[in-house]
Structure formats: structure tokens, C-alpha cells
């Protein structure tokens, strides 16, 4: 992984663009009344894939715990401390999530030999779905059972919504869910989200890191 260097770009030309592009409009949309859905765009997060090298998962766990205070969860899990965490992606693979790419800069070196670390901070668009109808909304697209008896905070799934690949994990019992979708699909995914949320009434907001 190339070092996520500190960006000193001052030239106004070099401004990052949100993975959501121009699709989301902040504010209140859809059916009137109390908004059933809150969509929070999570901007500026740091993301990286960790792929464990063969036979080194124990060592990987130790370094993650000692150096970063993180634990790599088992299949279908997501382990978070605040906004930092690891989300299971595949056998021996996790998505590291942090408030900024900067917060992940030490990972590649610290995990050398234990895991291949690949920056994905720009490759995904992130949205937090919450509100009283969050589960009903996701049921329109997620084929995975999100009922509290089957899913809950700390659980994660790699699946698809409206034929678009997603990785999702539940953050709290509110419930609120974070969804990561490939950047190039962000516009189409947002169109589905608006279609699905309209009947509940929804509001859109953005948070940085």
C-alpha cells in the first residue's frame, strides 16, 4: 500500500469530491409527517481492506489488539470502538474503518507480513441508515434477515441491494446501520434508497469523519 501521505495540496484545484457525487440533496423528502428514515452521509472516512497472510491470523489479532485496540471479528461480525473498527468481509479479510484515512496510515507497516493492507478510502460511498423505519426500509433491498433475533449491533453482512454489492453492519440497536457501496454505483444506489425511503418520509444529512 502506498503511504497515505499528509495532503498539503493548497491549490484549489485539488479538492476531493464526495463519493456520493451530486446525488443526495440534504433536507426533508418523501411522505409528510414524522420522518421514518434518517440518511447520514459519512464523508471522509478511512477504509482499508486487510487480507491476512496464510497462517498468521493469531499474530494479526495480537498486533491489532496491542497496537490499535481493535479485534478482528469472526465471520459476520463488526467490532467497533467509537468510529474505529473492523468489519468482517470474507474469510481472513476485514474492512478497517476509521474517522479519516490518516488514522489508518500506520496499518500497512504494523501489519507487514501479517496482512496485506489496501487503502479503499476512496473506493466506497458510506451512508448511515437510522430512524424508526430503518429496518423496514432495508427489508426492501436486503435479503438478509435483520430482525433483532437474527442480527444486531456488531453484526455485518456482505450482500447486495437492488443488484448492487454492499457491505453493511449494524452500529446500534436504534437500529442504525452503516452501508458501504462501491463508488461507481453510488448514484444508482442512492436512487434506490430514495425510491425505498419515500413512503416513510426521510431526511438527509452529512457528517464529516
Amino acid at each position: 500500500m502506498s503511504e497515505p501521505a499528509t495532503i498539503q495540496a493548497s491549490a484549489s484545484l485539488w479538492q476531493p469530491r464526495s463519493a456520493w457525487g451530486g446525488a443526495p440533496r440534504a433536507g426533508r423528502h418523501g411522505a409528510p409527517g414524522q420522518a421514518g428514515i434518517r440518511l447520514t452521509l459519512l464523508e471522509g472516512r478511512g477504509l482499508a481492506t486487510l487480507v491476512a497472510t496464510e497462517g498468521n491470523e493469531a499474530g494479526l489479532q495480537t498486533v491489532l489488539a496491542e497496537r490499535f485496540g481493535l479485534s478482528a471479528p469472526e465471520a459476520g461480525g463488526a467490532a467497533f470502538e467509537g468510529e474505529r473498527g473492523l468489519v468482517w468481509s470474507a474469510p481472513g479479510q476485514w474492512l478497517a474503518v476509521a474517522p479519516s484515512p490518516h488514522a489508518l496510515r500506520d496499518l500497512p507497516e504494523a501489519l507487514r507480513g501479517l496482512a496485506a493492507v489496501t487503502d479503499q478510502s476512496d473506493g466506497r460511498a458510506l451512508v448511515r441508515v437510522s430512524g424508526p423505519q430503518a429496518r423496514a426500509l432495508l427489508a426492501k433491498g436486503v435479503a438478509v434477515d435483520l430482525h433483532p433475533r437474527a442480527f444486531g449491533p456488531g453484526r455485518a453482512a456482505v450482500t447486495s441491494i437492488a443488484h448492487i454489492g454492499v457491505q453493511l453492519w449494524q452500529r446500534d440497536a436504534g437500529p442504525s446501520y452503516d452501508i458501504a457501496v462501491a463508488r461507481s454505483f453510488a448514484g444508482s444506489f442512492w436512487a434506490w434508497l430514495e425510491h425505498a425511503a419515500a413512503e416513510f418520509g426521510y431526511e438527509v444529512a452529512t457528517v464529516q469523519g
Partner: protein
Amino acid sequence: MTTLALQRAEAPVSATSADQPFRTAAGGLIDRNRPRDFTFDGRRLTGCHGDTLASALLANGVRLVGRSFKYHRPRGILSAGSEEPNALVELRSGARREPNTRATMAELYEGLEATSQNRWPTLAVDALSVNALLSPVFAAGFYYKTFMWPAAFWEKLYEPMIRRAAGLGRAADAPDPDIYDHAYAHCDVLVIGGGPAGLSAALAAGRSGARVILVDEDFATGGRLLAERREIGGASGADWAARALAELESLPEVRILSRTTLFGVYDHGAYGAVERVSDHLAVPAAHAPRQRLWRIVAKRAVLAAGAIERPHVFGGNDRPGVMLAGAVRTYLNRYGVLPGRRLAVFTSSDDGWRTAADVLAAGGELAAVIDTRPSVPPALRRMAEAAGARVVTGGYVAGTKGHLGLSAIQVVDGYHSVETIACDGLAMANGWNPVVHLDSHLSRRPVWDEAIHAFVPGTLPSGMQAVGAAAGRFTLAECLESGARAGAEAATACGFTATTEATPQTDPESLDHTPLWRVPKPLGKAFVDFQNDVAASDVELAHREGFRAVELLKRYTTLGMATDQGKTSNLAGLSIMAELTGKDIPSVGTTVFRPPFTPVAIGAFAGHHRGKDFRATRHVPSHAWAEENGCVFVETGLWLRPAYFPRAGETDWLDTVVREVETVRARVGVCDVTTLGKIDIQGRDALAFIERVCANPFGTLPVGKARYAVLLREDGLILDDGTIARMGETHYVMTASTANAAKVMQHLEFCRQWLWLELDVQLASVSEQWAQYAVAGPRARDTLRRIVDPGFDISNDAFPFLACADVTVGGGIPARLFRISFSGELAYELAVPAAYGDAAWRAIMQAGLPYGITAYGSEALSVMRIEKGHAAGAEINGQTTARDLGLGGMLAKKKDYIGRLMKERPAFTDPDRPVLAGFRPVDPSARLRAGAHFLARDAAPSLEADEGVMTSVAYSPSLRTWIGIGLIRRGPERHGERVRAYDPVRGADIEVEICSPVFVDPKEEKLRV
């Protein structure tokens, strides 16, 4: 013989509803205080809240509702449910017009518009009803026999004629304005059906705390309890159902989906259902869907779908006014409608006598009860006779009379004398068939139950249990008991503690029943399948002509092939065939049913995925700039790629593409190539892994260098090509073509996880992380010098052709730079983090301004790669080997790799095999077409003479002529030879000269400066 003509213009039954002359004075589950105005064929009518369109029409004395499919016979309302074959109407108008809607399922709403179908000019006078007179001609197999010759008549005469006459109803001719939705649901116990058995099952399962979904196609829950005068535990059945529903609604883990049809049963506990969310409204509420398609996954299912009553097969049994006896009770008891002034009952069971009793209880006139059985319980006979009804036992209804509706029945008694009895309604009770459709969706055949003379579910899909009438347990007590038991068992199987309470007391009932499959001597056409106009005589014809197997009978006569899937007709057809062949019914067998149980609108299946959302669209990082600059895009798979960027004054796409190519060749251009797949390959054994998946060698590739890579399939054909760049000692980046990105990743995972798990290799797709731009042309380096941060030497010496490196841009933004070229020019690909993709593109455009930079799209890219003879998707098409494309020489000799052995098969090494060559027209102004086949100049076109195919063509701005590349036998040996590019599809036959596929800079001098 006595005849009693019946006039229908009598005094209204209810004085309080003069506008609904057939509405009873009181009773029913409709709300008489909420009138609902609607129109039928433009006629303004009024019904009540709680009506269906069918009950409202009957309340208004409308019996004639449509014309039949083939003979255009007048048809009315047969049933009161989803099995309805006759009363199909167009609902709504304009963009919301919906054909073939069953009036028995359409919930009445204020302003409902309904139109009858399949009639011209009007319902009462239908020109095509002449078909009925020709019915001997239109019998089964008519089309097969008649339209066979002369063959020339097919296109001009037969087909247009059949098309005009075929079909029912008219689809809307404007896009549907409504929203359709999808949803997934998961549960422990799925209960299908909201009648007494289903409610009992849902209660038993729901009380245990299990997650329960109750699906009911009706808008009011209770099933037959709403239609019968029955008692449960001293309360009316309808009250019991209401209480059960209230309790279910109070249970947090129970979801009730009413107005929802469970239409399909799929493997491993998956079910499909469609919820008519807003069909009962004129227009859905803002943002609300019209319908919602549910995909339900259940650990256990209780099938409580009930039963469908069987009609009798007798002459004129399709005349409006002839109805199923249970439906008559539904209209009487649930809707407060008398389906006629003077009703007769034709029964083969005690059940039919309940209809007689209900007619009397509702204040109707009972004309007669004709029971096919020789003797009936004396109490029943007394009840009818006391009301002045004629009672015939051991007889049958042979025929009917009436113009556009029933006015009399012709009854044959035990002594074979015919008696005509005036009546305007006839209720048929010939027993019930359990709904075996859903449990046979997984190819499981129902089995015959002689005790109830009906098919019942056979081996059920795993986890499913049938209860109540759906299992052939018809009494109310059995429904309640079997439902509760199955609900409890299902919940227990899911790990819950369920108890069953004592079954509540129900009033007694008798099910004595001896079916009469068809009357011995019908007077007139006796229909079996109403919707497809199949008569008993058609089944006889099929028998005579040898179409006796049940699947042949079905296809020859179209029995059961209408949209109702033969819900009211299948058994009658089978029983007649059984009688004709001298077999019993189970030996004749039965066809199995397929989803959907009832028709489902395409819109419900499409959901959100229509119009621009038909499928997902992927955008490239430079999309915003491209849009701002008037780019024309092209769909490439899911990607929307910039195709070309027209400028003012350019009138034709070719003008633009020529300008873009010329600018790149003379100055500099930039193209978004982000759509390529990009895979990071890391790990101790990364090189060994690459060596095994690539056909060309990589052992000598140093850090900081990239190389063209070709991947074969194991069968020896090319899988894909791309580049592999060595970014570090054990870190490589592979690119895959846009179309194959996912396929290549899947292939690499297969190799890693299945073939060679001993290799330590880690794969990560970085396709989305990096925006990647090709900067090409003589001034590419000058342009990039202003982009790449100072401190990185990108001079030709420091960064030669095929170099690669991690660099930074824009003052510290990490980037990857590759000196690779698809265009044949001095070229680079610059990868930047995708968030900076937009910025980097704008920066490059600005940096290149002094050099006259142009943005170029996939069209110019394609022109330049054809000019260079580079293979792309049209050549790497799953049929070509590396040798075919002139890449044979680069393949490794000393390593094992995927496809190594199979590429050596004789057919792949045949010297006559078509291989890559270039082509230019002999007449420089001629336009070439991809897809043209190559023929010797004097050869007549034939498969044998075919020498190959033109795969890609372009107008070459560099050569000022059209050029092509393609695959032709022994191509490289034949440079200079002339052949024909023959294209009969587009009427072209052009002489071309075979040449090298590299049209521009064959010595590759431009690449390396």
C-alpha cells in the same frame, strides 16, 4: 312440460336501496352507510364500502359482465374469489388501465371505472359471437388443423386474423405512473390463507412467540367464515375471525399481509407473494406503492389455502346467472346481495342445501332444488318444500335458457322427463377441490382421496404442512383443529413452546357428497373450462383423436391453460377423460401447477428497476466534467463511458472522433480508463501465482516495470488480457478489461482458493479506489510534468516505456504512474485516489491547455487501438487463442499455466485456422463493416467458402480511409492478397486487401521517445 317465463323487472328486494335492487334489506359485512359510486361500461352505478366489483354489479342486477374468449358467449360471474374464469374486466382507464382483472377480487372504491372485454361493438350485441354458431368449426385442435396450408397464407392471412381475434382486454398504452416495490421477509412460520384453519394456525404459532407471517389474498380476513352462517363457540364465524385477527394484531412478532396473494413456492423455504397495497384506491397515496412483491423465507409453512368448489358440467352451464353454490352464499351472507330473484340449486351434496337454506334466510325465493342423489335427508327436503320450492332427486339440470342471462333451467328427473323451471339464478354444488396448486409448485403431484372425491396434497415440500380444506378436511371443526395443531407443531419445530387449546364448539354439518362429473344428456354446449371455452365435447374429440394422456389433453384442448390455470375445470376434464377411457381418475393423473397462482403484474416483478433504473449505472470519476462539457456517453456493460466530446461546429460524431484522434496523434489527449478492472496482488508467492495464471512469463519483470499479460482459460482460449505492474518486491497490480473485470477476479479467487491454496497470495480489488486516466500523445510527458509533483523524474531515461512507480500529485496526493500505451503514442496511465479523480481530470485538462489537449472517449480509443492492431473484446471473444491474435510468440515455454496444454489441441494449431490480419478497402472511399465475412474474389457465398470474419473496423484519420482487423485463414502469409468482405445482412460486398494489422507506427518509435 311447463314453462314459466320470468320477468326481471320486479319490485326491489330492499325498499331502502332502490338503486341497488338486489341488495338485501339487512345483513352482510358491507357498510351501507358508505356508498361507493362506480361505472360499468360507462353506466353509473352505486355499491357499498366492503363490496367487490362483482358483488356491486350483482347488487345492481348486472349479470352480463363479459364475453368468452373463443365463442364470445355472454358470461357472468361464476365465483366469489380468485378462481373466477368469467368475470374479467378492464379496470381503470388511461395509463392505469388494467385488463383481465377478476371482478370478484376487485375491491370497490369511489369512482371505480370498469369496462367489459372481448366484445364489439357492445356487450349485449357482439359481432364475433357468430363464432358460437361456428362452434363445430372452432372445436379443439381447430388452429392446428385449419391453418396448416397453404403455407403462404400464414403471414398474410392466418396470423393477422388470429392475432386480431386473440387475447383478452387491452393493456394500457402509456407508461404505468405508479410505484412498485419489493420487500424481503423472514419468519419462523408462514401461514398461507386467512380462513378458520389459517387463523387457528397463526394463533397457535403466534402465541408461542414465533415470528409468524399470515398471508391472505382477501381484503377482509376470515375466509369462508365471512361467507357462511356458522357458529364457533357460540359466536358467529365472522365475529370469531375478527377476534382472532385482533389478537394476532396484538402479537408483536406476527405480521398480517392481507390483500396479498402467495403466488409461488420455491426451493428451501422461499416463497413469492404480491401485496395489492393500493389497488383498492383510485390512486395510491403520495409515495405509496401500488403493489409490493414480497420474497418470504420461512422455516415452516402451514398451507391453509382452502378449497375451490366444482361446477357441474351440463348444457348452457356458462349462462350468466349460473354460479357456484358457495359463491351464492358469499354474496348472500357477506355482501347482502341476492344473486337472483328466484334461485334454484343444483347439488350433488348436502352442502348445496345450505345454499337453499341461506337463500331462504336472506328472504330470497327458492325455485327448486335438484339433487343428483336418489335420496336426501328428509329434513332438507321438508325445508325446501315448505318454502314452495320444487325438489327433484335423482335428477339433473340438463340445459339452461335465457338470452343474455338465465331465465329457466331444463331439469331431467329420475324418469327422464324434461321439466323447465323458471329461475334467474342457479347455484351449483358438486363438491370442493382442495387448493393443491401451491404444494405442487415444486413438482410434487397431488394424490387422489376417494373419500372426498378430490385430489389432496401428496408429499409436501419440506417444512410445509397442509391443513383444513386445503388438506381435504372440510368441516369447520377439522379446519380449526388441524390449523391449531399444525401451527403449534411448526412453532415447536422452530424451537418455541406452543400449546394447543381445546377446539371451540362448532355447529354440526354434513358433508355427504356423490359427485356427478357430467350430466348424462346435456341440452346444449356443456362447458368444462369457461375461460378457454373448452366444452365436454372437446374432451371427447381429444379422446377420439388419441390425445388421451393428461398433458396432451391439456395442450390439444387448451383445458386449464387460461390465466385461471383451470382452477374450476381441471378435475372435470380429467373425470370425463377417465370415463371415456374406462379408467379411474387417479390413473388418468393430473397436471401439476406452476407459479404464479394468479397472474402477477410485470410491474410488480420489475419494482424499482424500470426506465433508467432498469439496471444500475456505473459512473466514471470524470463523469461530472464530461457532462458539463457536452460529452456523448455510451453504455458499456453497466458503465456509462464517455464516447466522444463534441465541440462547437462538429456536426457528425465522426468529425469529433477524427479530431480527437488527430489531436492525440499530434499533440495530447486524456481518456478516462477507470472502467478497467484493477487487482492488487500481494504476498510471498505473488509471482508464482501470476506465473500460473498468465500465459506469458513474468519471472524477469523487475520492480518498477509493467508488462502486457495474457490469461487463458483452461480450455486454451483467451480469458482476458491486461497489464501487470510490479509495484514492489511482492506487490503487483493487474488490470483486466472493463467487461471481464469481475470474471477475472472470480477466476483468480478460484485459483487461490481451490487450485493452489499452498500459495501465499492476497488479492484485493482496487477498481473503485483508483481513478485512472490515459494521457497520450507527443506532449503527454509535458502535460504530466505539470501534474506529477516535482521530485519525481519522469524523463524518458528515468521513466522509460513500461516503467511504473508510486508518485504523488497535487502536492502530496498518492498516485500511481504507468508508462503504458493502448494508442501507440507516448502515453501514461495515471491513477489517483478516486476522490481526487474529478480534480485530477480538471488539472490535466488545464495542464495540457498550452499543448492543445483534448479529452477523448471510447470511440477515439477504439479507433487508435484498431490502427495499432490491438485486440479487444471483438477479438477476445471466447473463440480465439493467443496464436489466433498473433500473440503465440510471447507465450512461456518453461512453466505450467492455465490453458497451457489445451491450447495445443490440433484444431487450435491448424494452420488453416483464421488468424488476425489487417484489411483496407481497395476503393479508398468504401466503408467497411464489422461482421462481414471473407470470401475469395471468385467464390460463391457459402459456409464452405467462408474464410473468416471482420471483427473491428474504424475510419482511420491517420490513413484517411476505413480500415479493419479481422480473422482470416493464414492471414499473415497473405498480405497484399485481395478478398471480398461480404456482408449480406447490410447488402455490402467490398473488395479488401489483406495487410498487417498494425496500420500506424509499425516500428513503435512513438512509444519510446
